[in-house]
C-alpha cells in the first residue's frame, strides 16, 4: 500500500495518486498530497514523535489541530529557513520535507534526558525555588550561577533557534470589512454566506489549509441533501462568487484588539516545497471589522489518568479526523473511552474501516443516546460506568487498565485491555479565546460544565461550537443567524434566511460533556494535565497544599497552561482538578487570562517589511549624492544620514577632521546643513507668537535681521535652539535642530491652537523645501560673492546675523549671514530641487579658494572651539539657559514666555548649579572621554559625588591641543582652578577656563 501501512483503502481528502517523500529523524517515509506531517507519520504507524519538556517522556500525536501539545518538530530547510517547534499537526506535507524531533539526546527512542522521569520525585512543581541556594561554604550565588542555573538552562527549551539569518520576507496589510468571520467550519461558513448575501464586505479566515472545519472530518449525513463533506466546497464556491468576500485560508486570527481590530497571520509559502524566492513567507493582516463573527469551534479534552501520555493515546475527535479526512487509522486495535457521545461515532467509523474496536468505555453509568444505540446495533463492545485508571507500554501504549467507580468514590479494578491505541474524549471546550480577548465577559454554563461567551464588550457574535451550540443543525443555524445579525449591525438589511436541513448525523446529546473527574494515580505513576510542560495532577495538588489558592498562582507555580499550546487542551482539566482539591466550584476558581496570540506568531510576520533599508526611512539631503561621490563617511542623526567627514587618500577620521577644521579656519569650508528643521511662521502676530515661545525678544527684531533663539519647555529646560530670521514684518524663517524639527513644530502648534488661538499666525514646515549650504571661513565672501546676484554681500549691507533674498548661482535663495564656526559665514538656502547644482557651483569655488567640504564632526569641533552649545550634548533636559551662560539671551522686559516661570523655582536659582566651562588638559594631546566625570581630587574615594561631566571633547588641530566643554558645579566661579577627570588609565588634571577657546573677541566673524 502506498504512503503508509495505516492508510485506508479509500476515502479522505488526500490524493492517493500523488505520493510525497519525506524524512523524520532521517528515516525516509512516504505520504500523500493533502497530508499533514502528523497524518503522514500516523499513516506509517509512527506515533512517537517527541519528548516532553521536563521528564523527557516519549510522546505521540494527541490532536489533529493547532492545539497539539506534544508533536512539536523542527522542519529543516535550506539555510536559515529551518524552523523549530512546529506542530506536526499543522505542517502540510510536501515532497522532500525533512523533519526532526526535539528535546532528546542522542535519539528519540533512546533519550538520556529520560533519567529525569526516574528522578521525578526530586522535581515536583517549583522544586527550584527550594534548593540550589547553597552550599553554605561557597560564596552566595556561586553554585547557582556557575553550576545549577547553567544545567537547568541546558535542559530547558524545546527546539533550537536557527543559526543563520532568516532569508525570507514577510508582508503586511491593513484591511477593513463589515464582517470578519474567524473560523470556517459549518458555523463560520454559514455566517459568511448570510453576511455576504446581505451585501456585506466579508473576510473569512481559517487557520487550516482547507476551509470547512469539522465538515472535512464528517463521514456521514447530509445538509439539504448534499453529503456533509461536500458542503464546505459548495459554500466556498458560493462565497468566492461574491466580489466583496475575501477568503483567507492558512490564516489564524491570533488577536482581537480594541475597537474591533483583529490581527491575522497568513502562512503563504511554508507548505510549498520550492516557494517563490521573491514572494513573502507570511503576511500580517490588521483587520478593522465593523462586526466580528467568532466561529472557532471547540477543543476536545484529554482524560486525566495514570500514564495518560503514552504514544498511541489520542483524542477521539482527532482520530476521526485522521480517519475521515486523511484516510489514516490510528492503530489496529483501539480502545475508545470518554464521557461523551463522540466516542460512539468514532468507534463506528473505526469499525467501519476494519479497525478492531477492543472496547468502548463510557464513564457515564447510564448514557442514553442515538449514537450509543447505533454502536450497540453495530455490535461494538460497550462498557458503561467504566473509567481508565492507567496504561502500559514503553514507546507506545500496549494495554490499558480499567476500573469501575464505586459509590464511595473508590475504584474497583475492572481488568486490562490490550490495544495499540487509545482514543479518548473528556468532552469539548468551546474556543472562547477570541471572545475573551475582546474583553467580553465569560459565563459558566453549569449544565454543560463549560465557560461560554457572556456579555460582549465589542461588536461581535460567537457562533457554532465556540458559542455553545451543539449538533450540526444548531451550529449552522447559529452561524447563519450570526451572519445576518452581523450584516444588520453594519446597516444591511436582514435579507432572506437560508434554510438548512441536516440529516443522518450522529448528534451528540450534550454540547460538550462535563469536565471529566480525573482518576488520580496511585503510587509513583503520573497523570498528566499539561502534557507539554509535564504538569501532573500531583503538581496541582502540591501547589494547593503549599497555600496557592489563586489559579493564577497555581498556573505560575506549576507552569500549567504556559506551554506553546497555552493550555488549549489542559486548562479546563487543571481547573477541575484544582477546584476539586480546594473544595470549591470551577467558576469560583476561575480561568486564567486569555491572551493573544491564539497560536504562536512568527516574529518576522509581526515585523513585516520593516527590515534593512525599509526598517525606518533613510533620509538623505539633496547634496548627499555628491558627498557619497567624494567618499564621505556618514552618521545617523535621527532618521537622517549626514556627511560625517570627507576622508581623502589614506586619511583616518582624525586626520580628515583635523584637515577640515584647519581649512575652514584658514580659508573656507562648505557644509551641508540641509537637515536643520525649518518652520515658516507667518501672520500679523508672528513676532508676538515667537516672543511668547522663545526666551528671546523678537518683537524688536528688524526685518532682514536674525537672532539666536532658545526654546525651553515649560519646566524651564533648554530643548531646542536655532537662528530665527525676520524676513518681513509678518514673516519669520525659524530654524530648529535636526532632531527637534518635528517636536518643535508640534509644540508650536500646541500653544497656538490651544493656548493662544486668538493669534493670527500660521506655521508651515519648510525643512524639506530648502537645501542649506553653509560657507564658512575667512574666504567665504570671496567664494560666494561672484555667485550672488541681486544682493550686496558686503559686511555693511549684510552684517553678521542678517538675511536677504538674492539669486545664488542663478537660483532664488534666502541668503543668511550667520556663523556656527566663529568664522565669517553664510548659509545659502535654495529650493531643494536646485540644492545639488548650487552646491556644486559653490563647492567648486570653495575648492578653488583652497577650501574643502567638511562634515558634522568638523562642524562640532569648530563650534566647540567657540564654546557654542549643541542641544542634546551640552544639554540633557536638565539644563537652563543660565547654566550655559546664555542668560543674556533672555528678553529681560518680557512678562512671559514658555518656561519663564520655572526659571525662578528654588532649584533653578541655586548658586551651585552646574555651569558650562571650558577644560584644558595638562598634556596638550590628552583627550578626555565624552561624559568623563570632573572631580576636585585626583583619586576620589568610591562614591564621591562628581562636580560635573565633560559634555564635549575634541582635539583641536587649529589650537594644537585638546579642548573640552564641561558642566561643572559652580563652574564659572572656578576659572583658573585645577580639577581632575578620572579616566580608565588614571585621573587627568585639567584647568577650568572660559568655554570660548578660539577668538574670544569674535573678530573673525567679520572675516
Amino acid at each position, binding site marked *: 500500500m502506498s504512503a503508509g501501512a495505516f492508510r485506508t483503502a479509500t476515502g479522505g481528502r488526500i490524493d492517493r495518486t500523488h505520493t510525497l517523500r519525506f524524512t523524520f529523524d532521517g528515516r525516509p517515509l512516504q505520504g500523500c498530497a493533502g497530508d499533514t506531517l502528523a497524518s503522514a507519520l500516523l499513516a506509517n504507524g509512527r506515533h512517537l514523535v517527541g519528548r516532553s519538556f521536563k521528564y523527557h517522556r516519549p510522546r505521540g500525536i494527541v490532536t489533529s489541530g493547532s492545539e497539539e501539545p506534544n508533536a512539536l518538530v523542527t522542519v529543516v530547510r535550506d539555510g536559515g529557513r529551518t524552523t523549530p517547534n512546529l506542530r506536526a499537526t499543522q505542517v502540510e506535507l510536501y515532497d522532500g520535507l525533512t523533519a526532526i524531533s526535539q528535546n532528546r539526546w542522542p535519539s528519540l527512542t533512546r533519550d538520556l534526558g529520560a533519567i529525569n522521569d526516574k528522578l521525578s520525585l526530586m522535581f515536583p512543581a517549583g522544586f527550584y525555588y527550594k534548593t540550589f541556594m547553597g552550599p553554605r561554604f561557597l560564596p552566595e550565588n556561586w553554585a547557582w550561577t556557575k553550576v545549577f542555573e547553567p544545567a537547568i538552562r541546558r535542559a530547558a527549551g524545546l527546539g533550537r533557534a536557527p543559526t543563520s539569518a532568516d532569508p525570507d520576507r514577510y508582508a503586511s496589510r491593513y484591511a477593513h470589512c463589515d464582517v470578519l468571520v474567524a473560523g470556517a467550519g459549518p458555523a463560520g461558513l454559514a455566517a459568511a454566506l448570510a453576511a455576504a448575501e446581505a451585501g456585506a464586505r466579508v473576510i473569512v479566515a481559517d487557520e487550516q489549509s482547507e476551509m470547512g472545519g469539522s465538515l472535512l472530518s464528517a463521514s456521514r449525513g447530509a445538509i439539504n441533501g448534499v453529503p456533509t463533506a461536500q458542503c464546505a466546497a459548495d459554500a466556498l464556491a458560493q462565497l468566492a462568487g461574491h466580489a466583496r468576500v475575501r477568503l483567507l485560508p492558512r490564516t489564524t486570527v491570533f488577536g482581537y484588539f480594541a475597537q474591533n481590530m483583529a490581527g491575522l497571520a497568513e502562512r503563504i509559502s511554508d507548505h510549498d516545497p520550492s516557494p517563490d524566492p521573491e514572494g513573502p513567507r507570511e503576511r500580517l493582516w490588521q483587520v478593522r471589522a465593523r462586526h466580528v463573527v467568532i466561529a472557532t469551534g471547540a477543543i476536545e479534552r484529554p482524560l486525566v489518568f495514570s500514564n495518560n501520555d503514552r504514544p498511541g493515546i489520542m483524542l477521539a475527535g482527532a482520530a476521526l479526523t485522521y480517519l475521515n479526512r486523511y484516510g489514516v487509522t490510528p492503530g489496529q486495535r483501539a480502545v475508545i473511552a470518554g464521557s461523551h457521545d463522540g466516542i460512539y461515532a468514532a468507534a463506528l467509523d473505526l469499525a467501519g474501516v476494519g479497525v478492531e474496536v477492543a472496547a468502548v468505555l463510557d464513564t457515564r453509568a447510564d448514557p442514553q443516546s442515538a449514537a450509543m444505540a447505533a454502536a450497540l446495533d453495530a455490535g461494538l463492545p460497550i462498557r458503561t460506568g467504566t473509567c481508565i485508571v492507567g496504561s502500559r507500554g514503553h514507546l507506545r501504549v500496549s494495554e490499558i487498565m480499567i476500573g469501575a467507580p464505586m459509590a464511595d468514590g473508590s475504584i474497583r479494578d475492572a481488568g486490562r485491555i490490550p490495544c495499540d491505541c487509545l482514543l479518548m474524549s473528556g468532552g469539548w471546550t468551546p474556543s472562547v479565546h477570541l471572545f475573551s480577548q475582546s474583553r467580553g465577559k465569560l459565563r459558566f454554563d453549569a449544565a454543560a460544565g463549560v465557560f461560554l461567551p457572556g456579555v460582549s464588550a465589542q461588536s461581535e457574535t460567537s457562533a457554532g461550537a465556540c458559542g455553545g451550540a451543539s449538533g450540526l443543525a444548531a451550529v449552522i443555524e447559529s452561524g447563519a443567524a450570526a451572519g445576518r445579525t452581523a450584516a444588520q449591525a453594519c446597516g444591511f438589511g436582514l435579507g432572506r434566511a437560508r434554510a438548512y436541513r441536516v440529516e443522518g448525523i450522529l448528534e451528540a446529546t450534550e454540547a460538550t460533556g462535563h469536565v471529566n473527574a480525573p482518576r488520580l494515580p496511585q503510587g509513583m505513576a503520573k497523570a498528566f494535565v499539561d502534557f507539554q510542560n509535564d504538569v501532573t495532577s500531583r503538581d496541582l495538588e502540591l501547589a494547593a497544599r503549599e*497555600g*496557592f489558592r489563586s489559579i493564577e498562582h497555581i498556573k505560575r507555580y506549576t507552569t500549567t497552561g504556559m506551554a506553546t499550546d497555552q493550555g488549549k487542551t489542559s486548562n479546563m482539566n487543571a481547573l477541575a482538578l484544582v477546584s476539586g482539591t480546594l473544595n470549591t466550584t470551577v467558576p469560583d476558581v476561575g480561568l486564567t487570562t486569555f491572551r493573544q496570540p491564539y497560536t504562536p506568531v512568527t516574529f518576522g510576520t509581526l515585523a513585516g517589511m520593516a527590515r534593512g533599508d525599509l526598517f525606518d526611512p533613510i533620509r538623505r539631503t539633496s547634496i548627499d549624492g555628491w558627498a557619497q561621490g567624494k567618499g564621505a563617511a556618514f552618521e545617523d542623526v535621527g532618521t537622517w544620514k549626514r556627511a560625517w567627514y570627507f576622508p581623502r587618500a589614506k586619511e583616518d577620521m582624525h586626520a580628515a577632521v583635523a584637515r577640515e577644521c584647519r581649512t575652514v579656519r584658514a580659508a573656507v569650508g562648505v557644509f551641508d546643513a540641509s537637515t536643520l528643521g525649518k518652520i515658516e511662521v507667518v501672520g500679523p502676530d508672528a513676532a508676538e507668537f515667537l516672543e511668547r515661545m522663545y526666551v528671546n525678544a523678537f518683537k524688536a527684531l528688524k526685518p532682514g535681521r536674525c537672532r539666536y533663539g532658545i526654546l525651553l519647555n515649560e519646566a524651564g529646560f533648554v530643548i531646542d535652539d536655532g537662528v530665527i530670521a525676520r524676513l518681513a514684518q509678518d514673516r519669520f524663517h525659524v530654524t530648529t535642530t535636526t532632531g527637534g524639527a518635528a517636536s518643535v513644530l508640534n509644540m508650536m502648534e500646541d500653544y497656538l491652537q490651544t493656548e493662544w488661538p486668538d493669534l493670527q499666525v500660521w506655521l508651515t514646515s519648510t525643512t524639506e523645501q530648502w537645501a542649506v549650504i553653509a560657507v564658512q571661513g575667512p574666504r567665504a565672501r570671496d567664494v560666494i560673492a561672484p555667485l550672488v546676484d541681486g544682493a550686496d554681500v558686503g559686511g555693511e549691507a549684510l552684517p553678521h546675523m542678517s538675511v536677504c533674498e538674492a539669486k545664488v548661482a542663478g537660483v532664488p535663495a534666502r541668503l543668511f549671514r550667520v556663523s556656527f564656526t566663529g568664522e565669517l559665514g553664510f548659509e545659502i538656502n535654495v529650493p531643494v530641487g536646485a540644492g545639488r547644482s548650487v552646491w556644486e557651483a559653490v563647492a567648486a569655488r570653495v575648492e578653488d579658494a583652497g577650501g574643502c567640504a567638511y562634515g558634522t564632526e568638523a562642524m562640532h569641533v569648530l563650534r566647540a572651539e567657540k564654546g557654542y552649545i549643541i542641544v542634546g550634548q551640552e544639554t540633557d533636559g536638565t539644563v537652563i539657559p543660565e547654566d550655559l551662560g546664555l542668560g543674556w539671551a533672555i528678553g529681560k522686559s518680557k512678562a512671559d514666555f514658555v518656561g519663564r516661570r520655572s526659571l525662578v523655582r528654588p532649584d533653578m536659582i541655586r548658586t551651585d548649579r552646574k555651569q558650562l566651562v571650558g577644560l584644558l588638559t595638562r598634556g596638550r594631546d590628552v583627550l578626555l572621554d*565624552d561624559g568623563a566625570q570632573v572631580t576636585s581630587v585626583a583619586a576620589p574615594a568610591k562614591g564621591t559625588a562628581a562636580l560635573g561631566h565633560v559634555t564635549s571633547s575634541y582635539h583641536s588641530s587649529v589650537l594644537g591641543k585638546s579642548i573640552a566643554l564641561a558642566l561643572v558645579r559652580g563652574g564659572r566661579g572656578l576659572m583658573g582652578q585645577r580639577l581632575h577627570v578620572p579616566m580608565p588609565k588614571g585621573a587627568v588634571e585639567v584647568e577650568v577656563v572660559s568655554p570660548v577657546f578660539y577668538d574670544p573677541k569674535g573678530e573673525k566673524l567679520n572675516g
Partner: protein
Amino acid sequence: MQYSFLNLVRQGLSGHQDWPAQWRSPEPKTAYDVVVVGAGGHGLATAYYLAKEHGITNVAVLEKGWLGGGNTGRNTTIIRSNYLWEESEAIYEHALRLWETLSRELNYNVMYSPRGVMMLAHNVHDVQVFKRHVHANRLAGIDNEWLSPEEAKAFCPPLNISRQLRYPVLGGALQRRGGVARHDAVAWGYARGADRLGVDIIQNCEVTGIRRDINGAVEGVETTRGTIKAKKVGVVAAGHTSVLMAMASLRMPIESFPLQALVSEPIKPVLPCVVMSNSIHAYISQSDKGELVIGAGTDVYTSYSQTGGLHITTHTLEAIAELFPTFRRLRMMRNWGGIVDVTPDRSPIIGTTPVPGLFVNCGWGTGGFKATPGSGHVFAATIARGEPHPIAAPFSLERFVTGRLIDEAAAAAVAH
C-alpha cells in the same frame, strides 16, 4: 520548614506531603500598626523589612487581587544599577547588593542571575550618553564598561553587528553584575518571609478608601473586606497609585500607561545575557525555561487595562528581528501588559506625603523590578521612623515643587 536540598530529598521520598503553606490566608484583623497597600514585590519587601529590621510585625499587606499579580508578575525582570544620577545610583546599587544575597536571606531561590546587561548604542549620541554613564558609574563604584561592537558580539553571539544595519551597533555599555531574576519567586519569597515573621498578607482585599481623623491624619483604610485601622499606611500600588492617593484627596505627578511584554516559544539556550536597545526600543533576555522574554514600549495613552496595541508589539519585534536576524523565524507565544506609573522625571517617589501617617512608594514606571529589595528596605525604614531614609530622601514629592528633578529619562530615553 526550611527549604534545602536535603528537605527536598526527604520530602521527595514521602511524596511531598508535608510542605507547609508558603503563607497563610488569614482573615484581616480590625487594626494593625502598619497597613501596606499593594502586595507587589515592593509592598511585600516593605512588610518583610518592617518586621525583620524594625521589629514591626503587626503589619498587614492588603492586595486587591493575588499577590505578585501586578507589575511584579509581568515584567521583563531586568536588573541593573548603572543609572546616571548619584541619587539613582545610590538606590539601585543598594538594591543590587541586596539581590546578591536575597535567595539565602529569604531562604527562597529567586534565581538572581547576574549574566550581564548590555545596552546598545546605535549612533554617536548614544555613544556619548553611555560613556557618560560608564564614567559616572565607575566613580560611584558601580561596574559598567564600554564594549566595542566586536566585544559586544563576543559577549552576545547572536547579535548582528553588521555596519549595514539601519541603526548599526556602535558599541555597548555592559554591567556584568546586572541580570535577571525569577519575578514570581521574588514576590513569593518575600511573602513567605514576611508571613513567617508574622505579617498578615490579605489577598482579594481591595482598598476603597483612606480614613482620616479630624486632624487629617490617617487612621485606617476601607476595604472590600471591611475597615482596617492603622496609624501608618504605606501605599505601594504602582499603576494604581493615583487612584489610591485620590482617596486621600491627593493628586500625584503620575500617569499610568500600559507597558507590554511578550515571550517566544521556548528554545535551547541562545542568548546568554540581557540586551537592551533604548533608541530602537527593544529589551530581550532568555529565561531559564527557554523563552525569549522581550519588553516593548509603552502605549501613548493612559490606561488601566493591562493590554496594549498591536502596533507597539510589531514595532518592538521589528527591532528584535533586525538585531537578531536568526530569531526572525521564532514565534511569539504570549503577549501581555502591565500598568506602569510614570513620573515626569522617570524616577520614583518614596516618602512622606502631606497627609500625616500616609506614606507613598511609587513612580517606578517601566523599571522598578530591579529596585524591589532596595525600595522595600528604604521604604520600611521611612515608615518605621516617620522620616525618609537617606537614600530615599532625594526621591521626595517636594522635588516637583522645587524643580530638583532626578531626570533619568532626559539622559537615556526609556529606563528598564
